């Protein structure tokens, strides 16, 4: 006869669970699903299997890329993740620039980093907000979206659009940084610095939120590597990997910043990684504002090629880059390129194959959320049903980004 388990010391998972099986269709019309259907197979309160039925917001970016010119693709590739459009845009442009062999002036490189970091903060705040509302914490939701608004406003001042910025173009960026925007950014940083302790008080250190996130959706380092996790999820599991460090693009090789890594691998660690990244991003932005070199924001090559009336004069009077219409059908040389950037949710990979025509022969876009699909399915196994949303939110899985 086995000894009776001590009710007061045993964990909830040790209790015998009477098998009551059933399926739940979480989504696509469900407040906690977003644009996907999660087919959940339950045994009691424990998820035996969660299957992600993705594709409800599939835009077929890759197929459309075959019939769009390179320039026309810029707005298209950033649609899948409008919260993170700078990164989507940047990765594509990096691949394109590799094929074209364009060199980008320093100032434009810094501006790319600046826009990317602002976008990263905005995206992390959005992700935290979504996680909060999944846990029923409406204040975190509203604060996340409210604070994000500050950064979106900055982005709007810089790029001219709130979300689908199309800011980065081959050879540089579209608009320059002005003193007014600098002031705005400094103000935004001051505001966000003031807000982070408040965030910690109501959200991160809230006993209720800690109970929901700690030891939930634990992903070990080995699992994270095997499943190909990316971004904050990977770093929350103790893997030191950030494209900004390993393959610096834009101005990241000249900037001083750290990569937060947590060993725990649970949902709480992932949230912490995001919050630390917000702080690091603000450091980066401060450095950029201080150190940004003077100069053009577009490659000299384009200035030489395009008649001054069309580009140079417009740039000098308005401070904006406007390409002439015939640029829409330029032809890069034959070749292929792989680019990767560290988007807010993780590593974003573009593979671009050009056959010399104005349209790409093949564009492959692998977004961080796409790579999170498998991680999500694996993590949900064995979790409690209520943890499904906690895992979902902590992975910062964004369906349109995964579907592309």
């Amino acid at each position, binding site marked *: 006869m086995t000894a009776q388990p001590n009710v007061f010391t045993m964990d909830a998972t040790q209790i015998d669970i009477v098998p009551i099986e059933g399926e739940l269709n979480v989504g696509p019309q469900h*407040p906690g699903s977003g644009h996907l259907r999660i087919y959940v197979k339950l045994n009691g309160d424990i998820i035996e299997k969660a299957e992600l039925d993705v594709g409800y917001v599939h835009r077929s970016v890759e197929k459309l890329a075959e019939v769009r010119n390179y320039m026309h693709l810029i707005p298209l590739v950033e649609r899948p993740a409008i919260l993170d459009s700078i990164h989507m845009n940047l990765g594509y442009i990096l691949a394109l620039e590799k094929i074209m062999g364009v060199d980008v002036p320093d100032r434009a490189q810094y501006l790319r980093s600046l826009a990317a970091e602002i976008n990263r903060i905005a995206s992390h705040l959005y992700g935290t907000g979504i996680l909060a509302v999944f846990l*029923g914490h*409406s204040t975190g939701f509203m604060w996340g979206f409210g604070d994000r608004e500050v950064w979106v406003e900055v982005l709007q001042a810089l790029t001219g659009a709130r979300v689908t910025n199309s800011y980065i173009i081959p050879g540089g960026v579209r608009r320059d940084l002005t003193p007014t925007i600098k002031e705005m950014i400094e103000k935004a940083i001051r505001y966000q610095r003031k807000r982070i302790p408040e965030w910690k008080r109501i959200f991160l250190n809230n006993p209720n939120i800690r109970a929901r996130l700690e030891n939930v959706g634990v992903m070990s380092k080995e699992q994270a590597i095997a499943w190909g996790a990316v971004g904050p999820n990977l770093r929350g599991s103790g893997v030191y990997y950030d494209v900004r460090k390993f393959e610096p693009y834009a101005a990241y090789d000249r900037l001083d910043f750290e990569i937060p890594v947590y060993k725990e691998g649970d949902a709480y660690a992932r949230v912490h990684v995001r919050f630390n990244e917000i702080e690091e991003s603000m450091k980066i932005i401060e450095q950029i504002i201080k150190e940004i070199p003077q100069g053009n924001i577009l490659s000299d090559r384009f200035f030489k090629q395009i008649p001054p009336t069309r580009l140079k004069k417009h740039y000098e009077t308005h401070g904006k880059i406007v390409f002439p219409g015939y640029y829409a059908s330029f032809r890069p040389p034959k070749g292929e390129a792989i680019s990767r950037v560290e988007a807010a949710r993780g590593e974003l990979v573009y593979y671009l194959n050009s056959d010399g025509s104005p349209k790409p022969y093949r564009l492959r876009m692998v977004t961080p959320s796409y790579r999170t699909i498998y991680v999500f399915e694996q993590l949900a196994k064995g979790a409690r049903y209520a943890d499904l949303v906690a895992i979902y939110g902590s992975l910062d899985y964004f369906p349109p980004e995964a579907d592309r």
Partner: protein
Amino acid sequence: MMDILQDIKYVIFYPSFFVMIIFPGLIAGGLFVLFAIWFERKIAARVQMRVGPYYVSRFGGIAQLLADAIRVALQEIIIPAGVNPTLYVIAPIFPLLFAFLPLAFLPIGVIPEQGSVFSAYYHSFFDPGVNMGVIAALPTEYSLIAVLAVEAAYPIFIILQAWATNNRFALVGAVREAYLSVAYDVLILMSVIATAVEYHTLDVAKVVQSGIPGIVANPLAAFVFFVGLIMATSRFPFEIVEAESELVTGPATEYSGLLFLLAMGGSYFGTYVYALYFAAVFLGGWYPLSGFPGAVILFLKAAVIVLFSVFLRSVYGRYRIDQALRNSWRLLLPVALASIVLGIVGGWLWIR
């Protein structure tokens, strides 16, 4: 002429009618619930750097909830295929009813022999325990237990409602309610037993008339009861049954229109009635006033409790069901036991 007016006055102020229908029952309660929801939205907006209801009416959009209620009530009622229509329609009425019915046993004030509008009913609503009349729909000496006995039926009808809608999310919600109800009922009952032992009575009026608020006499019981109240009425952080991001709206998932209003109204009414009970037993109730002013005092105390419990939404998320159960059995049950011990000691040494 005066006779007719006298008769009308007699009928209106007849406690059984007055308590259930006018104050603090249906009419006052309904308006207060709307106010509480408005307050919930407004205070959450304040915490969350928003404005909240704004446009309807001049004063902070206070009529917004009335407008919302009318709109929802006039929406089309959709009866899903594959349910028993009769059961489906009547099911949401029961939880509301059983959230509301316990009010019948709850005294909301005492009647002095003279000088109050209720003095005419002094003899018919006489309570020998306090040697005064009590304003209650059904005066009984066992009101402390009677209220809980009726309230305990509430979760059964939530389960019935979920069963009648034939929806899986509703069923999961119902199972959660079943688990949770065992936990919170035990807590509430134990804290009430502690109080009963301490005051040597099962009569709410006698507890109040003793002049010592329960929260002073037995703070542990008051705490345990308050947590139980929040759990029982699905307020944050124990809003587990209706958990929106997990279960859509739990047992009310399939309902629309007026039926949805009824299905969701139950928990707010439940909060209100529990709060009245809590105010009477633990916060000193109407003491030292009597008659109608006493009832207003009781109402205001209950209002504070309700408003506080809805305010918790802007502070907390929701616990998982297993965490809520573990907390209530592992942490709060010992406290409840301690409160009984404290009740015995207090009843033996202090309150006679």
